[in-house]
């Protein structure tokens, strides 16, 4: 890990509540990602991690609080300003979200073709360089249907970084990768952050890999922020939530079973009534 200046805040959530319609998924969320930092947002499945990413990219608006990217309140920007803001971000989607009508090369070239007017030879140079960094230079000619899920994730990573953005958001970058690709991807995220001086935000539940590369970790669950700190601070924490998550314990404050709701009880009774 390199020493970086923690002065430039790139992404900030200030006491934010997020949700869909009247339903609130997360509240009281405060997060900060600075230049040169790798920040991990952790939490179990369904804890609202992807909702955080959607808020950072202005796909949803915060119900409360303020989400700022590059110092601008994202709720206040729209149209051309939002377009310019998004050009400074790279996003790695959970399923890759590669364009199935384009091949590997054209997928990575897509942001360059859309946002720059550089020559074809420059495009080729940059795309092959990025594909090389994810180990897929020789797969440039393949169609998306011809590559594996893990390879698709790496192509998506190359596409997310091809414009060398100032903020890169990774949604579950380690899910579905084999152990070799997993280690290389984690190292790559760290190296890219150091090389580009960008802020990297990982949305993940992979403890080992993210703790190895993160500067700061935020843990969400049960609709709120559970803990935050450096990986070392969290690893030494005695908080029962943190311990249960890090140690993968079955028993603890985070319930494994989905809570019984009145709607479920009513549904079950109706089913029983139909059968009797």
């Amino acid at each position, binding site marked *: 890990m390199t020493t970086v200046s923690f002065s430039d805040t790139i992404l900030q959530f200030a006491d934010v509540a997020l949700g869909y319609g009247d339903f609130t998924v997360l509240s009281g969320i405060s997060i900060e990602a600075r230049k040169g930092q790798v920040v991990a947002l952790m939490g179990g499945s369904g804890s609202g991690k992807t909702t955080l990413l959607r808020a950072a990219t202005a*796909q949803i608006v915060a119900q409360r609080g303020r989400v700022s990217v590059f110092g601008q309140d994202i709720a206040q920007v729209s149209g051309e300003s*939002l*377009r310019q803001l*998004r050009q400074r971000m790279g996003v790695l989607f*959970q399923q890759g*979200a590669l*364009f199935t009508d384009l091949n590997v090369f054209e997928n990575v070239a897509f*942001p360059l073709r*859309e*946002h720059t007017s550089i020559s074809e030879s420059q495009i080729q140079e940059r795309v092959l360089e990025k594909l090389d960094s994810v180990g897929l230079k020789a797969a440039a000619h393949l169609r998306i249907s011809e590559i594996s899920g893990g390879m698709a994730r790496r192509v998506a990573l190359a596409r997310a970084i091809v414009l060398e953005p100032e903020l890169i958001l990774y949604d579950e970058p380690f899910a579905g990768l084999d152990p070799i690709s997993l280690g290389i991807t984690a190292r790559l995220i760290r190296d890219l952050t150091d090389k580009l001086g960008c802020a990297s935000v990982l949305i993940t539940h992979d403890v080992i890999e993210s703790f190895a590369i993160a500067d700061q970790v935020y843990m969400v669950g049960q609709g709120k922020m559970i803990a935050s700190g450096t990986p070392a601070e969290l690893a030494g924490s005695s908080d029962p939530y943190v311990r249960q998550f890090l140690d993968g314990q079955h028993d603890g404050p985070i319930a494994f079973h989905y809570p019984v709701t009145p709607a479920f009880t009513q549904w079950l009774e109706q089913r029983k009534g139909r059968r009797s």
Partner: protein
Amino acid sequence: MTTPYKAIANLGGRVRKGITGLGAFMRLFGSILARSGSAVSRARLVSQQVHFIGNHSLLIIAVSGLFVGFVLGLQGYYTLSRYGSEEALGLLVALSLTRELGPVVTALLFAGRAGTSLTAEIGLMKAGEQLAAMEVMAVDPIRRVLVPRFWGGVIAMPILAAVFSMVGVIGGWVVGVLLIGIDPGAFWSQMQEGVDVVNDILNGFIKSVVFGIAVTLVALHAGWTARATPEGVSRATTRTVVHSSLLVLGLDFVMTALMFS
């Protein structure tokens, strides 16, 4: 709520849903038109779509045109021979194709072949987060995905209708001249004499352009608004065929009434 009130409320709900849907459809049409400048500046994307949409529909259109021509030749001869006007077969085949069957049957086949593939493609792009990814990459998916496909469909449709009519005339000639033995000179000269460029060919062309707009737009709208699930995409694909076929037949009636009355 008592039953009559409930029925009225249901009816009101359905009407409101229909109007809202129509509004959303027209808004999407407006958004595509407003962004259509990119179709000129990035003509390569449109030409790719013309190739993709047109090429994939060409075979079915040509084969259907040939068989429709065969049938027109047989049926036309049967009817005309009762009045001793077999020589007018060429004219009958050409007028039927350029005025009606060319644009209408092509549009119906186009809806089934190209329309469904457009809907499924857009729906699956939505399900695979590709449209969301574009948006987050600061690329407008309407401009990048819908506009080239819309103009691709609108351009491909009249070309396909022309191919259909042309092959249909050949089909009519094969049956009328080669099989039945009508005088080839009469077959072609009656056609030349009776088919008017403005009244018949231009009106047929206008119809095929309108059908191209209607079918492509219905297909794109169905994919754009599809639920991002396998079932949602499948429903949207069915919707494309049903809605665009009905729209084509309805528009055909209106346009025929306006053009040939």
